[in-house]
């Protein structure tokens, strides 16, 4: 303990604080993950019917003995607590098990899909943030001007329209009327070419789903930026800066914006899980081969190991996203985390 404090005062807060935070966070995370798994396992179990029915569905029917064989094979005929115990035991050994539906290791299934979702979620989040902040700043400068109202309209439209509707609308507009973007998927496998051609292909496929997903969060970020910017622009230091003769641009973007960003970043961190769940719908509309489509089909298929595996990974992504948010906040606001 003494050693700790010594180090603390010596190196100035950040590393120890950060490591401590990380440790505490990890413990919370593990408890949270277990709770998520147990709760969802129980809920899945409560629902009538099971994966044997959906396997029969995929087959166009199945004889009774086949259904029974499936249930025996997956241990679905065992008492609930036995099933739960087995599952948690495996997870403790970092084994997420096999998908009932696809018969593939869950970890493998998820890792195949994770990159696509990360690409979509991060690009949409970044687009929403950049554009949201920009629009927020613009509208804050003339809060009652036409631009401001226009920004409000666009933002609220994106926020209130269901994503699958926005998605289909964009598809009809930009894939059918103007055939600028492809309809579905992440790549065109018929395209031949090198790295750049293929990367460009992915980007072209990414644009519509990214805009669709970003449209929901654009509203939040632009409205919040607008509000905090309005607040900042009324503060004394801004008035002082103007009084000193600092150019308008510099006042807004260098001084006021920097202080206005902190709550926006907090919100972005909080919204991270919402972006991931939003991705489920967007992926379904655009057949984006990510975790969202997998989650969707697995829930429909009652594929318990896969659903729990996805929840496990999503929770991890959210936890990491929140950590990144904290770091980003420290960057824009030195008061956070580093104060003795």
């Amino acid at each position, binding site marked *: 303990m003494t050693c700790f404090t010594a180090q603390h005062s010596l190196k100035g807060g950040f590393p120890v604080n950060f490591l401590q935070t990380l440790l505490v966070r990890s413990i919370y995370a593990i408890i949270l993950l277990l709770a998520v798994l147990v709760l969802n396992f129980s809920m899945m179990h409560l*629902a*009538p*019917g*099971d*994966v*044997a*029915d*959906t*396997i*029969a*569905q*995929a*087959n*166009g*029917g*199945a*004889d*009774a*003995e*086949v*259904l029974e064989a499936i249930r025996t094979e997956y241990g679905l005929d065992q008492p609930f607590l036995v099933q739960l115990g087995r599952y948690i035991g495996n997870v403790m050994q970092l084994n997420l098990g096999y998908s009932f*539906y*696809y*018969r*593939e290791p869950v970890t493998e*299934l998820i890792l*195949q*899909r994770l990159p696509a979702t990360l690409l979509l979620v991060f690009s949409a989040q970044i687009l929403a943030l950049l554009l949201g902040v920009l629009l927020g700043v613009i509208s804050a400068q003339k809060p009652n001007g036409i631009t401001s109202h226009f920004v409000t309209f666009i933002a609220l439209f994106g926020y209130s329209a269901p994503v699958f509707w926005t998605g*289909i609308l964009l*598809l*009809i507009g930009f*894939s*059918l009327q103007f*055939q600028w973007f*492809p*309809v*579905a*998927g*992440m790549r065109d*496998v*018929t395209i031949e070419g090198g790295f750049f051609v293929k990367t460009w292909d992915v980007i072209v496929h990414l644009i519509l789903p990214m805009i669709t997903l970003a449209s929901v969060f654009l509203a939040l970020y632009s409205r919040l930026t607008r509000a905090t910017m309005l607040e900042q622009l009324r503060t004394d230091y801004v008035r002082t800066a103007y009084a000193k003769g600092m150019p308008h641009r510099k006042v807004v973007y260098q001084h006021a914006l920097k202080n206005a960003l902190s709550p926006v970043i907090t919100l972005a961190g909080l919204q991270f899980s919402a972006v991931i769940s939003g991705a489920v719908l967007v992926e*379904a*509309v*655009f*057949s984006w*081969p990510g975790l969202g*489509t*997998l989650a969707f*089909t697995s*829930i*429909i298929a*009652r594929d318990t190991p896969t659903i729990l595996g996805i929840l496990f990974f999503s929770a991890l992504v959210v936890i990491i996203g929140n950590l990144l948010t904290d770091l980003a906040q420290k960057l824009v606001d030195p008061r956070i985390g580093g104060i003795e």
Partner: protein
Amino acid sequence: MRHIFKDLMAATALASIVATASYADEPKKGGTLVTVLGSNVRNLNSAVQSGIVTGFPGAQLFASPLRYDENWEPQPYLAESWETSEDGLTVTLNLVKNAKFHDGTPLTSTDVAFSVEVIKANHPFKSMFAPVETVETPDAHTAVLKLAKPHPALMLAMSGQLMSIIPKHIYGDGEITDVKAHPRNNENVVGSGPFKLVEFKNGEHVILERFDDFFIDGRPYLDKIVMRIITDPAARAIAYENGELHMGAFESLPRIINRLKGVDSLTVTADGYGAIGPLDWLAMNTSKGPLSNVKVRKAIAYAVDKNFISKAIMQGTASDSTTGIHPDSPFYAAQDGYDLDLEKAAELLDEAGFPVKDGTRMSLTIDFGWPGVKPQVEYVKAALKKVDINVEVRSSADFPTWAKKMGTGDFDLSWDTVFNWGDPVIGVHRTYDSSNILKGVWSNTQSYSNARVDELMAMAAVETDDVKRKALYAEFQAIIADEVPVYHTNTLPYHTVYNTEKVGNPPIGIWGTSTPIDMTYLK
């Protein structure tokens, strides 16, 4: 008379096909066909997995002994000829000599024997090969199926996706029952079909390429098939329209079908699904309450207007169906329908002992298993209101929830869709057989039991004379239509969509896309 007429029609159809083929389009070789699967693929090995999604890639990767033309006539495929013994207990398949698997190993009768064993142990449809006791292999190219009883359903069961011949040297490395979980069901899949697997990305695509050593010379015509997995029907529709997809099958949403019919570049057809045989119907639980009375069931059939369903809900895309057998099947015997007649319905309900009391005769529930059929269910509720039957609509959170209710008989009425899967023995008997009551979803969930129906099905299952067999099924269908354990309303309107300018000879036989498309080409 009808029969002769049908044969005549068939002959003319055949002649015209031959005629058009000879002068119109010479099939072109090469090219990549971009097509689509409407849901994710669970398993590419069609010897252990059924269903229309596996059927498409499965029938390209694996060949089966027979294939069927659009007139339900068996054609040679892996078997260049076949004969059934006089007593119907021996079926001999003479295999083509030049068939090879994708890894270069020759296909022999041992693989046929092995495949039958695997299918018997793993395939969800036990009735297909249950009577097959052993498969003898007197030489490398002769497989002799020994049957416990005559089994005419075997013919259709040897075609389409139902009897995929898989290589013993690949899939025979473990227990027979383990083949359903074999690692090579989804990667490095080896069959003897016209196309071999390049890549299967779960949730994204299946890519196949031409197998150069395919046993039919000069086929397949296509170099490559890309099957994209697009689960959203609206997104698929846009992709057909903007040309991203050349072809797709099993489209069933009336709104989308009608929209695509209006697109100049596309052909949209309901042809080619006879053996898949998808039927929509109103199921009635005959085991409890008022519905155990046949008069009540008939009254309901009279009160529910098929015409309305066909026009308003199916928007003209579906065809009429009056029995448990698909109208395109050679075994179909059309029955007199229950044309809308509210007076007769009321009369039957009175007779059955359900007079109107306090404005109502009885209360029933109606279930549905997927959101697409909610309109039908809401309509039934409204229609039965007119004959003073109160109907409560019960929705299920998802398919398994509904399946559980059906499988345990926890329902009065329900909307349902069931497939014929070729021969009636495979997909029709299960709904009416009294030994198959409440054995899970799509069993005899109506708990229907009629000794004569059981007897007719048992006789038809072993009747080798085609004419007699059809007569047995005709009587069977008449009884079913009369006793209405299910009220048959319409076919599920599966449609194939293809780009008219680009796709030549799309698969419109009897098996939809669950058939080799070695003759399909790009113009």
